[in-house]
């Protein structure tokens, strides 16, 4: 990831009237008012996976070595599979007849609810691995909690996804160690990626009224409570990798309410072009 290209619009979502004020009523960039908070909550879970899965799939045929090419494609397929299940459930919860494909391919960037971390361009291999590691360490904790969700469909999806996520974390943690504790160049690239991406990890631990409602209904995760355990994992692995944990500071946010970096729109243009050119096509 070159610094010149930039990895995100750092000014995005830095307003105070973006729905993150404690006690504010749930609002999104698209609708202003949320009719169905659990639908919104499921979109947040699904879109993280859909967007990150698509980003990883961009490595297919380009990874540094054949084995890693297959490994990244595997993780991409796992994430897209999880997104498909979650979007299907979201469509049912919404009750307006939207299928998982409709939700994946016929929403615009402003309707996506993923954290900004996962939509950032892949950068170099170190940036892809660091982004994935920061996400995986969080994802395992989230899915562990969701296996006990009161919504049985969601609990089932989480149980399946948790097995996959544990392997993802094992794989990316190993790579963080290899890159950080590798050559001078791999260390420098890993540290630079970590410094660039660290601010975006903060959004994973933000919650608003939509999250609170899901938690209250027994089908959500209080992400803020996961932060200490996440830091344990992350600090340990980064320590073994001889990488320096960046200081917490300015943190971009807004993805959960539809405020995204300029990168998501371009990615969706690519991801959705086929489905939009041939609506309803089957193969």
């Amino acid at each position, binding site marked *: 990831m070159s610094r010149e290209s930039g990895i995100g619009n750092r000014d995005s979502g830095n307003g105070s009237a973006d729905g993150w004020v404690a006690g504010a009523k749930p609002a999104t960039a698209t609708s202003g008012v949320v009719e169905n908070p659990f639908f919104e909550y499921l979109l947040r879970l699904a879109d993280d996976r859909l967007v990150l899965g698509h980003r990883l799939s961009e490595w297919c045929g380009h990874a540094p070595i054949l*084995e890693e090419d*297959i490994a990244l494609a595997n993780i991409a397929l796992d994430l897209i599979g999880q997104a498909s299940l979650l979007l299907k459930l979201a469509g049912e919860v919404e009750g307006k007849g939207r299928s998982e494909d409709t939700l994946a391919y016929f929403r615009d960037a402003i309707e996506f609810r993923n954290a900004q971390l996962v939509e950032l361009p892949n950068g170099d291999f170190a940036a892809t691995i660091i982004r994935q590691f920061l996400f995986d360490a969080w994802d395992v904790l989230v899915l562990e909690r969701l296996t006990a969700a009161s919504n049985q469909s969601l609990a089932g999806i989480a149980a399946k996804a948790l097995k996959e996520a544990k*392997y993802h974390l094992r794989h990316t943690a*190993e790579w963080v160690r290899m890159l950080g504790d590798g050559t001078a160049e791999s260390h420098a690239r890993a540290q630079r990626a970590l410094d660039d991406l660290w601010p975006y990890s903060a959004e994973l631990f933000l919650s608003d009224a939509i999250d609170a409602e899901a938690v209250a209904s027994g089908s959500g995760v209080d992400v803020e409570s996961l932060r200490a355990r996440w830091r344990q994992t992350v600090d340990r692995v980064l320590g073994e990798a001889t990488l320096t944990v960046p200081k917490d500071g300015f943190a971009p946010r807004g993805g959960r309410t539809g405020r995204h970096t300029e990168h998501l729109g371009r990615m969706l243009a690519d991801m959705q072009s086929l489905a939009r050119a041939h609506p309803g096509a089957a193969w």
Partner: protein
Amino acid sequence: MTTDTVSATGGAGRAAETQWDLWEVFTQEGEGAPHEHAGSVHATTAEHAMQNARDVYARRGKVVSLWVVPTGAIIASAPSDAGPLFDPGNDKAYRHPQFYKTPRGVRGL
């Protein structure tokens, strides 16, 4: 190679300096089944080899166990040894179980 036994690649890591070491992968497809050679992967460490083996050879099948072995640790017979090593077994019929008739009343063979 002129030695009687040869290491399968001449030693892990010697193939090319820019390549990671080669590891052989063995997969087991059920409890009690033998571990069978599935192929090979490149990797830097044992854990890395295990992960690559999982991703390349165990993601679709019904694999229940994986072994990874540094290719250099495998001692292979040389093609020129095929005669001395394997031919003598074929000309002595009594070495094959089919040579012997099963006595009546024996079950479970």
